[in-house]
């Protein structure tokens, strides 16, 4: 390889190696790296906090720590030949001789102007220490003594660095009243404001004056301000949105904002750099940490009351949700009680704020929503005359939302119509329309409206509301009355087509709540009674049989319930969780023991059994089990067989013959003695001659034939339920076959034996049915003359 090439390679390698090492880092975001915010160099809550350092002894301790070891008598080597500092000053520079007084040893008599320089280098009678002077200035003008210390460091001639300072270095220590406005624009210092005490006091006064008269000055918070980068106007300007009084005050005192180069070069200098405000920021960070509080909300360590410090007024906070409603304003910072005490106290902070431009806003969720009139403010319970005034920059931290309207939705799902200082929950848009109202909605947090009392909710008729707090439900039949609605499957099924929505209990409590709960039965104005079943409402043909007290509802509401039709003529009910079917008779519910009895009980081929609430079932007194009328029963302990007559009577039987002729089901059902004991047992046995209603019948081969027997025979009167299950024929049979095989012609209740088959055929040709009878029935019929 060519040697020249090798050499060139080695050279380039060397350069590139060190070049890469020493390349400066990427400074594109240098301002962010330093954290310097030109619009918010320091927060008001820090800048104007006079109590941040405690008493003067703490300031003295601070000076002791930050002032170098003092060479009061100039005995230390100056580095200039063999001269010590005093010799160097006097012989070489023509400066005064010792004592040289360091800041932590400096005393001054404010009345006479005498200082430690004339008094032996330290404390003297009548002298006030620098720490005390700083403390007094801070307290008098309510400026943080840290601010004065930092300004002293940036404005003075090295008082925090010099180990043998001269008196001249104290003369204009705060850079106050020493402008270049003398002849030829030379320094034109005002001697009446010279000296450490006056410099410190006037500087503190000036900063307070800026605060009190900010509107007159060239820089102000809450607006865009044009600021030069440097004392040299050719270096250009920057538009800065100043956020607070403290920062504006710094810019009035030192009217330049540092460029990125100046920020990056700290503690050095840079082209077109300005250093006063840069140094203030960096010096502060070195000594006191952050120049910013956690936020605009402050409290003192001694008092838990939190305030929002607005535009020179502090507003106490009783509702912590007000802090969470404005995260852009930050959290809670700690300040001294003296800082808070010096700020006038306004009314309790509410949701209403305004900035310097006068627009009143409602704030929540980091948004400010402007009001377009004081009437709208009033609708929200506010008063245009008592709204917290914040600085414009505080207001500007919140995003601007839409105009406030009377309609408001919350993230928790509530809808309010807000007027007259109350919030009215709106059930739905249809409810609002029904009330003749129409509004647009904004969406904010629920907490935003905690302060407003509830008003009567806006709810349309025939809807169901559910409490958000306890889930209880109410049926609204108009806009003022609510009926408690029971929890049951039957109710759910019956009201399933009603719109349901949630309201707070506080809203519901403002309505007239009906005393009775809609549960198992309702009745309209005309007296039509319905039970609430699995299949919806069912008309009750005989409400008195149930013995219930239904809730009166408008017929228009009842018409909207699910369900049609009615219960059976005899009500048959069961609950959801029990298989027992009850027959409702005589104001009692009687358990049905066999479904096959249904038809005999209701007289219907398809009986309807209503599934109803347990409450309804439980409200009806329980009676004996029910057996269908005209059924045969016996107990295990006794051979006697009975026929049920109706639902409460038993007729003993001495023979099965009457039962057979009456058409009774011959299956014998066994019941317990205790159940039997609840029946009324007739004293006479069952016969075939009976009365149903007012008609006498005689049973033959399972059918009742209308017939009245002569001879004083008394028929047994049967209960209607029993009669209902028996087959009747209103015409008597023409011929009766007796158990001995004889066929008789029955004429007017008398049997006439027929002598031959041929005669029977002859007679039967004229009509008339032939039926058989049992022996006992036959014995009831007298026998007449035979027919041949």
């Amino acid at each position, binding site marked *: 390889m060519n040697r020249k090439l090798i*050499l060139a390679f080695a*050279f380039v390698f*060397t350069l590139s190696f*060190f070049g890469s*090492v020493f*390349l400066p880092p990427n400074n594109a975001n240098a301002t*962010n790296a*330093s954290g310097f915010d030109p619009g918010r160099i320091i927060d008001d809550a*820090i800048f104007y906090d006079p109590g941040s*350092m405690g008493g003067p002894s703490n300031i003295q*301790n601070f000076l002791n*720590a*930050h002032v170098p070891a003092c060479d009061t008598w100039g005995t230390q080597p100056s*580095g*200039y030949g063999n001269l010590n*500092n005093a010799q160097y*000053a006097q012989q070489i520079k023509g400066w005064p001789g010792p004592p040289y007084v360091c800041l932590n040893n400096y005393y001054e008599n404010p009345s006479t102007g005498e200082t430690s320089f004339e008094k032996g280098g330290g404390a003297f009678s009548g002298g006030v220490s620098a720490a005390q002077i700083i403390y007094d200035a801070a307290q008098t003008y309510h400026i943080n003594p*840290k601010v004065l210390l930092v300004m002293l460091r*940036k*404005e*003075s*001639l*090295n008082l925090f*660095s010099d180990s043998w*300072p*001269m008196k001249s270095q104290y003369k204009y220590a705060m*850079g106050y009243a020493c*402008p*270049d*406005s003398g002849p030829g*624009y*030379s320094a034109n210092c005002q001697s009446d404001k010279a000296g450490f005490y006056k410099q410190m006091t006037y500087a503190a006064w000036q900063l307070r004056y800026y605060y009190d008269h900010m*509107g*007159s*000055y*060239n*820089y*102000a918070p809450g607006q*865009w301000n*044009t*600021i*030069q980068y*440097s*004392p040299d*106007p050719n270096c250009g300007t920057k538009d800065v949105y100043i956020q607070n009084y403290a920062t504006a005050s710094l810019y*009035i*005192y030192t*009217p330049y904002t540092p460029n990125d180069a100046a920020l990056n070069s700290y*503690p050095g*200098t840079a082209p077109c750099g300005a250093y*006063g405000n840069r140094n203030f920021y*960096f010096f502060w960070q*070195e000594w*006191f*940490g*952050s120049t910013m509080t*956690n936020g605009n909300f402050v409290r003192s360590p001694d008092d838990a009351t939190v305030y929002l410090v607005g535009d020179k007024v502090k507003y106490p906070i009783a509702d912590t949700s007000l802090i969470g409603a404005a995260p852009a304003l930050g*959290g809670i*910072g700690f300040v001294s009680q003296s800082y808070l005490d010096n700020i006038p106290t306004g009314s309790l902070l509410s949701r209403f704020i305004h900035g310097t*431009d006068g627009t009143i806003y409602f704030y929540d969720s980091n948004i400010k929503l402007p009001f377009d009139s004081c009437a709208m403010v009033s609708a929200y319970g506010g008063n245009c005359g008592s709204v917290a005034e914040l600085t414009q920059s505080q207001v500007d931290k919140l995003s601007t939302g839409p105009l406030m309207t009377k309609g408001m939705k919350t993230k928790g799902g509530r809808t309010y119509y807000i007027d007259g200082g109350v919030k009215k929950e709106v059930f739905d848009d249809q409810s609002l329309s029904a009330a003749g109202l129409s509004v647009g909605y904004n969406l904010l947090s629920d907490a935003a409206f905690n302060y407003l009392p509830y008003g009567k909710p806006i709810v349309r008729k025939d809807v169901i509301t559910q409490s958000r707090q306890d889930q209880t439900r109410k049926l609204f039949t108009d806009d003022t009355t609510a009926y408690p609605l029971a929890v049951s499957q039957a109710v759910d099924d019956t009201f399933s087509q009603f719109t349901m929505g949630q309201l707070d209990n506080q809203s519901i409590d403002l309505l007239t709540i009906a005393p009775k709960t809609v549960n198992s039965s309702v009745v309209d104005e005309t007296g039509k009674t319905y039970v609430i079943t699995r299949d919806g409402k069912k008309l009750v043909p005989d409400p008195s049989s149930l013995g219930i007290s239904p809730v009166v509802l408008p017929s228009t509401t009842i018409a909207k319930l699910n369900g049609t039709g009615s219960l059976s003529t005899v009500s048959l009910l069961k609950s959801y969780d029990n298989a027992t079917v009850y027959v409702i008779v005589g104001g009692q519910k009687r358990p049905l023991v066999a479904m096959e009895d249904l038809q005999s009980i209701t007289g219907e081929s398809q009986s309807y059994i209503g599934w109803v609430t347990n409450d309804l079932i439980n409200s009806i007194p329980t009676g004996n089990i029910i057996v269908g009328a005209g059924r045969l029963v016996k107990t295990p302990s006794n051979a006697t067989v009975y026929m049920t007559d109706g639902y409460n009577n038993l007729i003993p039987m001495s023979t099965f013959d009457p039962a057979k002729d009456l058409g009774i089901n011959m299956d014998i059902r066994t019941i317990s003695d205790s159940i039997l004991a609840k029946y009324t047992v007739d004293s006479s046995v069952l016969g075939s001659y009976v009365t149903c209603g007012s008609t006498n019948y005689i049973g033959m081969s399972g059918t009742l034939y209308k017939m009245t027997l002569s001879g004083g025979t008394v028929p047994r009167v049967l209960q209607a339920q029993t009669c209902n299950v028996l087959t009747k024929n209103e015409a008597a049979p023409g011929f009766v076959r007796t158990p001995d095989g004889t066929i008789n012609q029955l004429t007017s209740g008398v049997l006439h034996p027929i002598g031959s088959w041929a005669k029977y055929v002859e007679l039967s040709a004229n009509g008339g049915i032939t039926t058989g009878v049992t022996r006992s029935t036959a014995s009831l019929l007298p026998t007449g003359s035979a027919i041949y």
Partner: protein
Amino acid sequence: MKINTKHNSKVKVIAIIVAACLVAGIIYLGIAFVNHYAPFVEKKQPIESGEQMTNLERSDAEKQKTQQLLDNPASKTENNQTDKPNAPTETTPSGKQSVNVLLTNASITNNNVHASGFVTNLAQEGGECTYVFTNGSSTITKKSNTLVNPTSTTCEAVTFSSDELPVSGTWKVVLSYSSSNATGTSNTKEFTK
């Protein structure tokens, strides 16, 4: 074979120089690493908001400044970072010194016109400020007093109802300052009524 000794000696010299540079560089890097010189300067992270303290330790910047004064005691009466403005040097035809005037804000908010500015390189009492608002042939003039700052002179801000502006549209604002011995005119700002 003939050996080019002259050429080889040149190569050796260059190689030695490169090696010396490398060694010197490495030594420097070691020292820089220990003492946090470039490129090992510590970049401090911004302090978190609300992190207040009182540091009773002298910072590196303070120590460096003290050392500078020990090294050069003649500089103890100097502070080159106080942002003192350059004194006016130009003279106007009227014989007055030309000062720099900066219009810092001109805006209209909530039906109020606001304007503010100051003389950046003069702290003087007794001068007079004039804000001139123009829109075509319409002109509004507002005079204001001065407020003296440590190194500058504020022209008191003016605020007035926008109803005083006779026409709508874009308004231009200029601030001028005049005293017995100084005069100056500012930059122009605009706002829309």
